[in-house]
């Protein structure tokens, strides 16, 4: 790692001020995304602003027809939450399948979203449920939040504080898991909430998480794997690496979407 200064603010406002004063400062919550990147010297923050201990940011609450989860909620807390397991089991399952037990003990919801790794699981659930990201400044719809590879709508001095997930009548997530890292080689989240039907793929696109409009259209009549039987998506824009070609990933999007629909 390159050298950095370590800070530990006790409030969101303090943290925002630290970010505003230094554009090269980076946030650390659980550290399971930023530290690996720093160890590879792919990032060179001047300051690490450790928000991991700011109080009140790891709550999980049912509010009307939504579950509101604090940005510092660890994956294990979301996975084990009775509220989430009862009201939105697909989201609990997403959290339960991230990384491994020790990683889930440290990694946070806000950290995963702010990082927007193209293979991460949470972005699929957030976009797949049409959630709202609540920050220190504003509310951002999931459709406007993810901007590409490791890019989000967040401004340099903006901090995610909560995410509001609307409850869906039907929802499920299925992923083809990379056996070593646990990342999604391809993961698909499907949901149906009134007339809002969403099919979202993570791990597949070279530009990060994306919706699959052709599948969503086909599911309007009937929310069932049969409605997209035999359908595929083009390999253009799919990610290619040593783990799988663009064609393979495009194929997996259809397979995982059908599995998710069968589970929803």
């Amino acid at each position, binding site marked *: *790692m390159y*050298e*950095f*200064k*370590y800070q*530990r603010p006790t409030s969101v406002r303090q943290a925002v001020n630290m970010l505003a004063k230094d554009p090269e400062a980076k946030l*650390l919550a659980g*550290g*399971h995304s930023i*530290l*690996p990147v720093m*160890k590879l010297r792919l990032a060179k923050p001047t300051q*690490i602003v*450790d928000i*991991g201990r700011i109080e009140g940011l790891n709550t999980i609450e049912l509010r009307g027809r939504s579950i509101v989860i604090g940005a510092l909620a660890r994956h294990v807390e979301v996975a084990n939450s009775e509220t989430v397991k009862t009201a939105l089991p697909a989201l609990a399952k997403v959290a339960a399948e991230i*990384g*491994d*037990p*020790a*990683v889930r*003990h*440290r990694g946070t919801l806000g950290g995963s979203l702010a990082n927007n790794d193209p293979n991460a699981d949470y972005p699929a659930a957030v976009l797949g449920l049409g959630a709202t990201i609540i920050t220190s400044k504003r509310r951002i719809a999931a459709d406007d939040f993810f901007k590409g590879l490791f890019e989000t709508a967040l401004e340099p001095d903006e901090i995610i504080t909560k995410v509001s997930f609307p409850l869906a009548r039907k929802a499920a997530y299925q992923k083809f898991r990379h056996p*070593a*890292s*646990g990342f999604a080689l391809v993961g698909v989240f499907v949901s149906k909430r009134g007339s809002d039907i969403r099919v979202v793929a993570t791990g597949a696109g070279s530009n990060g998480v994306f919706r699959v409009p052709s599948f969503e259209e086909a599911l309007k009549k009937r929310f069932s794997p049969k409605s997209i039987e035999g359908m595929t998506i083009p390999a253009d824009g799919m990610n290619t690496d040593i783990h799988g070609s663009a064609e393979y990933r495009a194929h997996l999007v259809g397979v995982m979407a059908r599995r998710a629909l069968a589970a929803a």
Partner: protein
Amino acid sequence: MPAVSLTVNGKAVTADVDPRTLLVQFLRENLRLTGTHVGCDTSQCGACVVHVDGIATKACTTLALQADGGSVLTIEGLAAPDGPLHPMQEAFRENHGLQCGFCTPGMVMTAVDMVNRLGNELDEQTIRHELDGNLCRCTGYHNIVKSIAAGAKAMKGATA
């Protein structure tokens, strides 16, 4: 340099550290507790698992400063230096749950965390699932799984 204060295996320690110091580095290099290993250094293999405030944590992906003020338990702290082995260590010995032994400290710390969270009756499927973040390149896991099942039972009633 900022100071870090920890309780490690029940003993209070304080040191000035470069903020870059990883928890695993701090344990191994500052405190000479070399039972915690660095395997992959990418939070995948689990050789570095320790308990931070009672929770299994990969010490290669945690800054020492993140644990400041907290309590860390390493493999060295599981059993008293001159006393008998911890029941989970004894189960690994009894069931030959290791070959080269490099992954073993992380395996044992993960296993104890597993029991703390899930109780003393662990079936094979649960153990294998929970071992997701611990890699062993020698054993094929069979005896590790047996060891953990036996150790979990043995921990019942024992002070863990």
